[in-house]
């Protein structure tokens, strides 16, 4: 083996290297969440501009063509790698303590940190539903079929109609709580895994991580809440829906 291949293999096989990759894929997924949230918040644009903003944004993304597919494949690959490494680490960590304590106790590990594999698994289920719901239109074809006056996919009204179903809105809210819990540990943890923490930065990054996790979860949950509370209404400005 060449020295380069050797050191890459050693890095990938090691627990430290695996954790670094876990942190990098987690960070990339967080980057996606931030961009996704920024896009979604256009749903809340005041002055009746939201439908136009949202539908134009969606059309623009769809118009990216091959670039969109590159981004989608990259995102899927990152997600799959994160999950594969999560499974590997969780299995390795379980195997490291074959006999459990009769008296289990936890001194300071946070709730979020102890439920990473559980919250991650819920995220997978949520993502599957979310794709079937809004990206592929399997669950509510009648919402997915909406088009606006300009013939664009009427994403605004699809989202409003989707979140007017109470069970769906509640489900999304719960899923966002779970994502927030995952990130309440994940964000601070990734700084440490990447070797960027020190005694001066530690508390700051930990608290910043929790704050960003809360902001992300609340930000995403804002949209179903806004629909349920009637703050966001179906748009009538888009004539000829359902064409």
């Amino acid at each position, binding site marked *: 083996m060449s020295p380069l291949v050797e050191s890459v293999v050693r890095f990938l096989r090691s*627990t*430290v*290297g695996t954790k670094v990759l876990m942190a990098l894929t987690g960070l990339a997924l967080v980057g996606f969440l931030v961009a996704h949230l920024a896009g979604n918040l256009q749903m809340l644009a005041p002055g009746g501009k939201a439908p136009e903003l949202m539908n134009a944004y969606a059309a623009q993304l769809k118009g990216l063509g091959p670039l969109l597919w590159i981004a989608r494949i990259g995102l899927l690959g990152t997600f799959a790698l994160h999950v594969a490494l999560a499974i590997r680490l969780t299995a390795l*960590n379980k*195997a*490291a303590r074959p006999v459990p304590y*009769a*008296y289990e106790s936890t001194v300071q590990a946070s709730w979020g940190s102890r439920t990473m594999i559980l919250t991650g698994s819920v995220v997978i289920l949520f993502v599957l539903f979310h794709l079937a719901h809004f990206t592929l239109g399997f669950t509510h074809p009648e919402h997915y079929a909406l088009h606006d006056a300009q013939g664009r996919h009427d994403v605004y009204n699809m989202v409003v109609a989707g979140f007017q179903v109470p069970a769906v809105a509640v489900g999304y809210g719960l899923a966002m709580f779970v994502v927030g819990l995952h990130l309440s540990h994940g964000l601070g943890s990734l700084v440490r895994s990447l*070797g960027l923490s020190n005694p001066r930065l*530690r508390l700051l990054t930990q608290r910043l991580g929790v704050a960003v996790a809360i902001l992300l979860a609340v930000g995403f949950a804002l949209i179903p809440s806004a629909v349920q509370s009637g703050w966001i209404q179906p748009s009538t400005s888009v004539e000829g829906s359902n064409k």
Partner: protein
Amino acid sequence: MDLTLNVWRQERADAPGKIVSYDVPGVDEEMSFLEMIDVLNERLIEKGEEPIAFEHDCREGICGSCSMVINGVPHGPQPETTTCQLYMRHFKDGDTIFVEPFRAKAFPVLRDLIVDRSAFDRIQQAGGYISINTGNAPDANATPVNKEASEAAIDAAQCIGCGACVASCKNASAMLFVAAKVSHLSLLPQGQPERYQRVLNMVSTMDDEGFGACTNQSECEAVCPKGISVSYISRMNRDYLRASVSTPV
């Protein structure tokens, strides 16, 4: 005070073990936890039963021998305190206390509360050394050492290798121990020649021994009798990353 002790009893490494309950009346609160077990053991011997096997040596908090998990916490409830320095005044009359061996695949139980921690020795042998010339002692202060680095190195060097970090970690990970050993040498000028090879070798030995990975839950730091900070783990990761990309040329 009167206590009930639920202790893990296991005759040999390959024998099955179980929790056995003992009534321990008349415990003096000035006794250390180990002295309390000594008293119980005397009574067991008088009754013709096998005493509880446990490890101890210095009984003054510096050797790291006294490995046991007390009510789910290695070295018991007092922060920065080894079991031998833990006093019975921290318990109440009528308490039921669970005493178990350190649990990790890499620390197999040999008997009762005694586990085999030689995995730590092998990690140490993989990199816990520096190269120096023999002969006359070098001039004192011939090598300048940055003050901050020397403080941080001494903090890391406080590790007594007791293994409580492994015992408390949800993943039985040895990262805090390894990070302390890697850091205390690599922070100092004397540790520079082997700096990168050291972290690569020690981490790889740690992995081969079957310890888990770090999930940054900081349980290790909470139970470490020497209060070693988890920031050393981040520091080790940084060194490991550098070592993975660095070449001599």
